[in-house]
């Protein structure tokens, strides 16, 4: 499976009437996860988050593709 770069966020059981809503729901939750953390704590949260999500995705070829894109823009 290739890396999906189309909008793909949703929430089971929640009905969205506007196309921007699921992405904004996620982004707010992401920023909220870092609320009142130091930069060092935030870096740790991000690392833990990546590890959790990587395991959830499972397919290492997808992860390699994502890691490559991420590194190119650094």
């Amino acid at each position, binding site marked *: 499976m290739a890396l*999906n*770069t*189309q*909008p*793909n*966020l949703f929430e089971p059981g929640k*009905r969205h*009437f*506007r*196309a*921007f809503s699921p*992405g*904004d729901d*996620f*982004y*707010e939750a*992401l*920023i909220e996860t*870092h609320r009142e*953390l130091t*930069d060092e704590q*935030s870096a740790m949260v*991000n690392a833990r988050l990546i590890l959790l999500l990587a395991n959830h995705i499972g397919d290492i070829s997808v992860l390699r593709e994502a890691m490559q*894109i991420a590194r190119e*823009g650094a």
Partner: protein
Amino acid sequence: MLSTFQYPKFEYVRPSEIAEGREGHYPVVIVGAGPVGLTAAIDLAQQGQRVLLLDNDDTVSIGSRGVCYAKRTLEVLDRLGCAEEMVHKGVSWNVGRTFFREEEVFNFNLCPEPDHHRPGMINLQQYYLEDDLIKRARQLPNLEMRFRNTVIGVTPADDHATLRVETSDGAYTVRADWLIVADGARSPVRTMLGLDIDGKIFMDRFLIADVVMKADFPTERWFWFDPPFHRNQSVLLHRQADNVFRIDFQLGWNVDPEEEKKPENVIPRIKAMLGDDREFELEWVSVYTFQCRRMNRFNHGRVLFVGDSAHQVSPFGARGANSGIQDTDNLIWKLKLVMDGKAPATLLETYSEERCYAADENIMNSTRSTDFITPKSAVSKTFRNAVLGLAEQFPFARALVNSGRLSVPSFLVESSLNTADSEVFAGNMIPGAPMDDAPIALADGTQWLLGAVGNRFQLLHYIPDAGALDAAAAQALRSLIDAPIPVEAIVVAERGTAPAGLKTLIDAKGRVRERYDLREGTSYLVRPDQHVAARWRGLDVAQVRAAVARATCNA
């Protein structure tokens, strides 16, 4: 500074109460003749209600201020008979471009769906909007506007409110059976009543400049994150009527607003942005901060709050005047039913419930935009810049770029006025939804669905061939008008003419059927404010009457 607009001066007339030395008495008094107060007054007066509108000033908005008027606002103003001129004068735009540092990262088109009468948004200086509303207000004989009449005292009571009003000829007293407060964010009336409004202030300042240019800039919205000409901040460029461009510079918190407003400080910023050779003149400059907050409830006995007096949001997304106008759209039909004795006062509780729900949604969306545009922490800024960096190449990231989610009406899905679906429907037109527009044809020449509905309860009943409607169904539909709260039946069809006494609405392009998931027999009950109240796959007069009762707190 240059002026492309001649401010009108509205005449002060000595109030009859002062001339005759007596107390006035009005069924409805509205305080504040901005976009929201004027809309409320026009809506009431258009329905035959006598209204007194008081304003402490004698002209329209000084400066362009609110410049984006959303599709839903235009639809409300269509219902009030005054959108056409605004749309004609305003600038309709659909394309927005987003820049990050030196590059354009993507652009979007606001108009994803064809076959709607009004565009997603028009840009028009607030003074033009107010000027047009005042022209419309002057056509209504039962609407009295008093300029340079300042409310200096309010005394609420169980069945009225008493106002003390000051003029250059002295003060007078008016008794209002109902008082609508539309006197803006700082609301003197709210303060006089000692009512709270809670929320948070954002520690940021923005400079807005109206610039007159002969520039051949396209009619688009341009938004820059961290551009080379204004490092680490955001800039927004919008076109308005008369070749006036609105430029909005984020300044940060630690600046002196008075210094920033001086032309010698503003002009270099604009020159850096436009390039030195482009000719322009400054028309108006202001520095603002903002708050996101709302009152706990918008109805306080006989006193009803609308617009900025009840709730405020950050300006990203144009949810100020647009949401205030929707407040009046929601309030006025309810107030009229209560005043006419056709609904209990509890119906006004639902004004507060539905519009608090909408205000919370507006505050949420504008706060999210604010947090994206002006990140509050290093990690938040890193995520923001990562999204912008990915946006050029990847569609998912474009969807996350938030430079303002432009004002759209709320789906009032939690409202107690809705009758829940008992059958299956596709699409978004669920109970509580603001109605989607569509091209149609009525015998009177109306060409849009939203031009055919509103101002009363209506039942839209679908049958492919209107001529094939059987006698029993025709009789049932006609009977809906005979009730304390009458329901006008409209037969929606692809062809044919409904039996005598019933309107036929031809679904010119099949969009009504598509957007409302219509099948033979499908019936939609719609509210006077063009929201869906209930829908069924068949026609049952008893169910329609029960849904009307529910939608008016008469159940």
